């Protein structure tokens, strides 16, 4: 496997469970040694000079494990000490990350008493201590409730300017946060592109969906008659009147232009027309080939 995250870019590492995301990240932080090949962080070879590489790196592990018997502020001061920051600088560094990660309200609480959302924030705060140019975040939003997820994502968005590699198996998250997505499967890179580039790859999977109030057989027949339509399937509408028809067309635009006229011309009522865009999930399943 080989991929590069350019300086200042946010990249997402995607893959099903067991695809090797965490292993790649642990190689990046020098916790594991790669059996072959080389890993560079900020231009420094992790194998040759792990300490120097780690100085440029903040890491949030998949399971944020904190010393339960330490209060948040003391814990962050301890991390600052471990990163070689002492004296007056330590206080201000810790104050900064507490403010940045919104931990002011819980700074005096024991780590062990924090909610999962706050634990994740403390995990992010410890990664940010020392202002490392590279951040490695292993599934930062896993296990959070929707509100916590949204909050953490907006926190991650504020990290602009740093090089960030985050792993996730939530595709929406990757496309919302990342400029580049690397898809892994069974230890191999199966796709590497921008979210838009990946979306383009699945354009052929697009479908037109219309809801029509009229006799299903006749409607389907009329739709099939539109030039360019490859396939029409009728689906029962989940709610409301009419039926849903899913239209496949290699080039949807000419079909879209004639759709309304065809339906109205047949004397039926057009209740809804929309484009069903392929999700990254579909792409993902394609790329991974399962």
């Amino acid at each position, binding site marked *: 496997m080989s991929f590069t995250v350019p300086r200042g870019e946010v990249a997402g590492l995607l893959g099903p469970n067991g695809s090797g995301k965490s292993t790649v990240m642990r190689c990046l932080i020098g916790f594991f040694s790669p059996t072959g090949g080389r890993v560079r962080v900020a231009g420094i070879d992790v194998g040759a000079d792990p*300490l120097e590489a780690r100085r440029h790196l903040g890491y949030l*592990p998949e*399971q944020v*494990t904190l010393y339960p018997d330490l209060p948040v502020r003391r814990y962050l001061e301890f991390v*600052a*000490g*471990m*990163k*070689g*920051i002492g004296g007056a600088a330590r206080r201000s560094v810790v104050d900064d990350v507490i403010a940045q990660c919104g931990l002011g309200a819980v700074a005096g609480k024991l780590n062990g008493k924090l909610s999962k959302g706050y634990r994740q924030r403390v995990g992010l705060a410890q990664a940010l201590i020392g202002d490392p140019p590279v951040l490695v975040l292993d599934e930062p939003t896993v296990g959070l409730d929707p509100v916590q997820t949204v909050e953490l994502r907006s926190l991650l968005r504020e990290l602009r300017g740093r090089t960030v590699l985050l792993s996730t198996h939530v595709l929406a998250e990757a496309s919302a946060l990342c400029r580049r997505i690397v898809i892994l499967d069974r230890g191999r890179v199966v796709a590497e592109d921008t979210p838009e580039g990946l979306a383009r790859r699945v354009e052929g999977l697009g479908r037109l969906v219309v809801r029509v109030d009229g006799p299903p057989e006749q409607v389907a027949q009329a739709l099939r008659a539109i030039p360019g339509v490859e396939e029409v399937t009728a689906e029962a509408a989940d709610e409301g009147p009419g039926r849903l028809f899913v239209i496949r067309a290699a080039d949807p635009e000419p079909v879209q232009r004639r759709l309304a006229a065809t339906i109205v011309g047949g004397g039926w009522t057009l209740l809804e027309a929309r484009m069903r865009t392929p999700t990254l999930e579909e792409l993902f399943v394609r790329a991974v080939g399962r």
Partner: protein
Amino acid sequence: MRAFVALLRKELRSYFGSPLVYAVAAVFLAYTGYYFHTDLVYFVTFGFGVAIMENLWQLVFLDVRLVLMLAVPLLTMRLFAEERRLGTLELLLTYPVRDGVVVAAKFAACLVVLLTLLAATLPYPAWLHAVQPFPLEPLLAGYLGLLLLGTACVAYGLFVSACTDSQVLAGFLTAMPLLLLWLLSWNEAASASGALPIVRAVSMFNHFQPFTVGVIDARDVFYFLFLAAGFVWATLRVLEARQWRGRR
């Protein structure tokens, strides 16, 4: 250096912030106090108050040694096993710090606790000295012996703790071989006659005995320091093994 101090402070805080150390200290002092009392009674009644090194301090140090051996596993068992179980070790080892600094800080923190325990027994001889003065220098040898023996035991406990994520197992596997070594040197007659010289050479307690009568032999000092260094080295290798074992 900053990382060493930060980790040492954190370790000491978790030692003195948990009830375990106080429970161990209470039991340790209760037992050593009891032994001091009974050995003193023996010294006065059967030793006729003469040859204080052989008839009192030797007995006291040998008894304190046994209590120390039982206390050390309780102090060392959490050092790495707890971090492994919590999963904090992974994060700890991703900071820009050498493994050696992590091991040294944990080792030092446990030695501080050990020193505190030993210092807490000083009132016994101080009280006796106030009642009936006696030469203090040989006593220093005894305490040095206890400290060296304790250091070797702590290093061994550190090593065992790095091998497992179960504190109970770490404590058990630290205590059992120490007890076995003690039994072997205590009950030498039970050893096969061919094995006896080996048991004597390896046993920590035969190297400890001269200290109890006020003798500091460089060979014994080096024996304990070598033993401690060996286990610290082994601990580092265990931590390193994560790199190729792929285990947390």
